[in-house]
């Protein structure tokens, strides 16, 4: 006990020093402790003396009129209620109280100030339970003790020994006044191994005697979690709230002490089990939309079941728990319930269990088919919120796992054929963008045909969202490729049990199909919508992904946009589109030149076709001569217009009308620039910008307006002759030549 007293003193020192500033506390702490200890050993700390008194006081000592007792008691009480008692003090005082050395009155009084400063030693509680078994403690005091245990339960340092005496504690359950508290305590202590048929029977006997008591049902429901083969129980929804708190006596003091000691019991609710309390009011009709609740399965066929050391997912509440029990987690009886819990999904991702995935897919496929394809709940309007909920959850799950479910994919292929394009559009397109790579042999039938129909018969906004969806799809495919290509080397052929292996070329075929498809959609879509800039913006988004496939994702593939996309972007009336086109051309050039370098260096088999280089050069030279050199409508160029027709239009110098100054997208900037350059001029002469330094300034001006894409394009593709002042300022330069 002397050693214990020493230890407790240093504990006390550290807690009493909390009025000092933090820095001094840490620096001077050890010094201070040593000094204080010496001083106190000399003088004798009244608190330690009091503890000593309580540990040594003999049974039968009278308490009425006992001044020594009173003084010591007050001493401990004051410490207890202000700073909390150190573990040793708890141990001493609890033993003192429960042994009834000075009667029941003392016991109650001690229990009331037994506030732990840090933690409660398990042994003290075990000993107290032992006293509970032998001594004649008044029932109300027993209740008080149990309430105290429940209140400080989280602060008990470990629970192994308490679990070892589970049987003794269980014994008290028949005591009518104690059983609510005992049930709660048992609830906190129960492990799978403590659920035994005879205990179940005892509790059921009690149930027949006492009626449907919530505390009994809650304990039994936990038994059902561990051993569903022993007990059947349906909890009424109003009873799912759990046990009451019994901490009223200590609540205020405990929180004050904890606040003071700054050591709150950590409660990490980082990842929560989602769908516990859902509305059960939904009709049976829409039963298939409900995510089932997590519950353990009756069947024990897993390899761990014999060892009885199984951790049901239902009991999983925190991530550390997941890590600790990773090897013995048991999957729930219904895999669909995993959708509601991100923790469980973490586990699912980790186990990679075939049949678990198949079960989940069966459930999910069934729900989707019933809701959207079979439509057995005929009032489809009523279930739409349920469907929305399910799809949103599915989306977030797939997002979490970063992969799509195969049942979703199968469902989507069927659903696209009957979809009207507006029902739950964001969700359906979201799911669609998550489908894995579709082999090029069937991509047309599965994906393109139904999409084309929807695309051309729907509104502008639908068109935009389809392009966006396909862009996301491509991004995901490319990301998968870059991940697995790194993993398996460049040749991605899996020796799996599937009939088809997806080789790199197979994957490339699929990507080419997708890109070409979007190209066709875009070209026609732009025509239909009159080159709407919103649609154009989504299309350019897509080509921003496409132009970087080689450098960003390591896919040796470059696909140029079709003319139906390139020219509308080039002649767009908004500068943003043109700017983005500039950026895209710049990235194309980067990709093509580095592909060429790599090809020459490594002499690898892959090569980008001459046709691609030719197309790129073609676009590039047109862009340069149109924007920079003011050359348009010349024979041999992509856009030829008959001279007579041009003269009929009565536009002066028609070839300049799409250069950087006269281009409708930049005309406003040119006027602005002109005004800033020559504020005094009355007559507008935009051509004067072309002369000399003004042209450089004008470019600077444009770049400063945020046209970074244009800047990159100009800097990468146009080498300028240093001879300033000549009329011919720039020269298109075609770097990546076709070999």
């Amino acid at each position, binding site marked *: 006990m002397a050693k214990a007293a020493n230890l407790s003193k240093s504990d006390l020192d550290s807690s009493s020093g909390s009025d000092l500033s933090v820095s001094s506390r840490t620096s001077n702490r050890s010094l201070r402790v040593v000094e204080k200890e010496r001083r106190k050993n000399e003088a004798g700390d009244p608190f330690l003396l009091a503890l000593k008194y309580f540990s040594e006081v003999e049974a039968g000592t009278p308490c009425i009129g006992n001044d020594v007792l009173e003084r010591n008691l007050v001493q401990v009480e004051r410490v207890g209620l202000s700073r909390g008692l150190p573990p040793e003090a708890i141990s001493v005082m609890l033993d003192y109280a429960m042994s009834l050395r000075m009667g029941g009155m003392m016991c109650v009084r001690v229990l009331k100030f037994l506030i732990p400063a840090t933690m409660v030693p398990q042994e003290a509680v075990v000993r107290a339970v032992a006293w509970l078994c032998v001594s004649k403690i008044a029932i109300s005091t027993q209740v008080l003790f149990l309430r105290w245990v429940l209140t400080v339960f989280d602060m008990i340092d470990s629970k192994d020994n308490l679990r070892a005496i589970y049987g003794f504690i269980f014994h008290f359950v028949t005591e009518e006044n104690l059983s609510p508290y005992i049930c709660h305590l048992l609830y906190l202590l129960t492990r799978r191994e403590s659920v035994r048929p005879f205990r179940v029977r005892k509790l059921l006997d009690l149930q027949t005697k006492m009626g449907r008591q919530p505390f009994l049902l809650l304990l039994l429901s936990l038994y059902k979690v561990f051993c569903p083969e022993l007990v059947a129980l349906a909890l009424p929804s109003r009873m799912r709230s759990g046990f009451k708190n019994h901490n009223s006596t200590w609540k205020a003091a405990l929180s004050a002490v904890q606040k003071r000691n700054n050591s709150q019991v950590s409660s990490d609710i980082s990842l929560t089990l989602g769908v516990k309390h859902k509305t059960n009011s939904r009709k049976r009709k829409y039963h298939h939309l409900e995510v089932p609740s997590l519950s353990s399965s009756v069947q024990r066929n897993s390899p761990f079941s014999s060892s009885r050391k199984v951790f049901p997912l239902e009991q999983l509440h925190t991530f550390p728990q997941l890590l600790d029990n990773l090897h013995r987690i048991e999957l729930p009886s219904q895999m669909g319930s995993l959708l509601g819990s991100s923790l469980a999904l973490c586990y699912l991702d980790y186990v990679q269990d075939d049949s678990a995935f198949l079960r989940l897919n069966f459930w999910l496929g069934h729900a989707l088919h019933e809701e959207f*394809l079979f439509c057995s709940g005929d009032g489809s309007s009523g279930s739409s919120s349920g469907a929305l909920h399910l799809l949103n959850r599915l989306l977030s799950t797939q997002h979490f796992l970063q992969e799509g479910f195969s049942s979703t994919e199968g469902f989507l292929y069927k659903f696209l054929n009957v979809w009207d394009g507006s029902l739950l559009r964001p969700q359906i397109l979201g799911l669609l963008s998550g*489908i894995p790579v579709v082999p090029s042999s069937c991509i047309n039938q599965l994906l393109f045909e139904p999409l084309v129909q929807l695309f051309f018969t729907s509104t502008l906004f639908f068109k935009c969202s389809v392009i966006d969806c396909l862009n996301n799809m491509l991004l995901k495919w490319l990301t998968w490729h870059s991940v697995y290509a790194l993993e398996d080397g460049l040749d991605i052929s899996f020796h799996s049990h599937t009939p088809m292996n997806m080789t790199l070329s197979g994957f490339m075929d699929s990507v080419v199909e997708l890109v070409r498809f979007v190209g066709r959609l875009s070209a026609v879509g732009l025509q239909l919508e009159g080159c709407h800039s919103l649609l154009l913006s989504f299309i350019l988004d897509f080509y921003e992904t496409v132009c970087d496939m080689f450098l960003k994702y390591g896919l040796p593939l470059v696909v140029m946009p079709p003319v139906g996309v390139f020219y509308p972007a080039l002649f767009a009336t908004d500068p943003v589109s043109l700017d983005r086109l500039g950026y895209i051309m710049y990235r194309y050039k980067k990709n093509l030149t580095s592909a060429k370098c790599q090809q020459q260096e490594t002499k690898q088999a892959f090569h980008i076709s001459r046709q691609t280089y030719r197309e790129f050069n073609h676009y590039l030279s047109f862009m340069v001569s149109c924007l920079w050199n003011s050359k348009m409508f010349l024979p041999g160029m992509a856009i030829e217009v008959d001279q007579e027709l041009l003269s009929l239009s009565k536009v002066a110098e028609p070839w300049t009308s799409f250069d950087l100054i006269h281009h409708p997208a930049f005309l406003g900037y040119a006027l602005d620039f002109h005004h800033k350059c020559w504020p005094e001029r009355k007559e507008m002469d935009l051509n004067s910008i072309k002369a000399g330094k003004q042209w450089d300034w004008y470019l600077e001006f444009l770049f400063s307006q945020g046209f970074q894409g244009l800047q990159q394009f100009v800097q990468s593709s146009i080498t300028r002759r240093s001879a300033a002042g000549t009329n011919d300022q720039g020269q298109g330069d075609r770097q990546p030549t076709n070999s």
Partner: protein
Amino acid sequence: MLNDAVIDYCSLSRFQLHHGKARCSKSTSGCVFFSVMEERSSIVKTSLNNVLAQRKSKSYRRSMRSCVEATNLGYTSGHLTALRIPRSRRTPKSRDITKQVDPDQVALLVKKEWELSYVTPLYQFRHTQLKSYSKHLSAFIVSEKQQGLAIEVGQELGFKVNFSVVLGLAETDEDAETVFIQILSRQVFAAKDDAQKVVWSGWLTCVNGDLEYLRSLPSEFVSLPLLCTRGPESLTVLVKSWFEKTFDCCFGPLGINSTNLQWLAALWIGCHPTINIQYLKLVWTLPTLPPMDVKYTIHPQDAWELWDSVRQDDTTDVSIEEVTRFIKGLQSHFFRHFRIELSAGSLMQVSTALGSSHHSGKIKIASPTYITTILQLLTECALLKMPI
């Protein structure tokens, strides 16, 4: 029901004439206008193997399945399926199943109307565990009926559940044996020794299920895709919910669409030479306002003659074209008399002395002789509903 047009035993005296015409049209273009919906069911049969045995791990690998699945994408009258829809069937062969199956058990199945559901494969269902399933299901039913009362599993309760195997109904090695479930209830005021009354019964079966599909399932799964139930709805719901919780499966209603009703009519007619079917009764609902039900009863001999005439040859297979032609023949005859185009409506019900079936998913099998043929067709319908 106000507009019911009830035609009993239409005389088919002028039938030969019409029937000659039917032959004519066959040789040219077949049934043109009839095949609006059903023709879409033509799909290419491809392997479904590996659809299920997919591993989740790598995305590329997983995408294979989608392709495989894709090719057998079918579209039939609003229902989409991944399995093949058969275009021809064997002619029903009369088989005395009482030789293979316990006659007492057969008696439980026949001459009752069953409501049909489909079930996704059962996870870890064991035919050897039926005793413990009985205990669990009865405890589950009682605990659900008395919310908030814990029940010890295995205790004597107001409800008794019997699981039993009906051996011999399975046709192939891949078919799982049929499981029969009975729920008995003790009457409140009954004496101790009184026999308990059967309040609910149901059975799960699989007869001649698609071999490739069944083989592609991992061994932990047992496919018994067809559930027939009889009894109060509340108990059906409880039983289904127990199965869902215990074997992680899903249930859905199984309707019999008009194509399958037509198949049933043809199959039953085909039995006429061996067993007198006594009558062939068809019920159509026409989309008028208010809807008009047409009950069309045909003399079995007339029906048989028509059927015999549309049969192309005496092969053992019956093709969908023959069935369509048969129904079309009946419809044109009706049109000739009443100027009502039955094909504009939908076939709701088919019944003969051998059994009856309803669009909403109800079936009654009166004779055990052709039970496997009927169950095979229903198993097929149920498998077509499987989500994967």
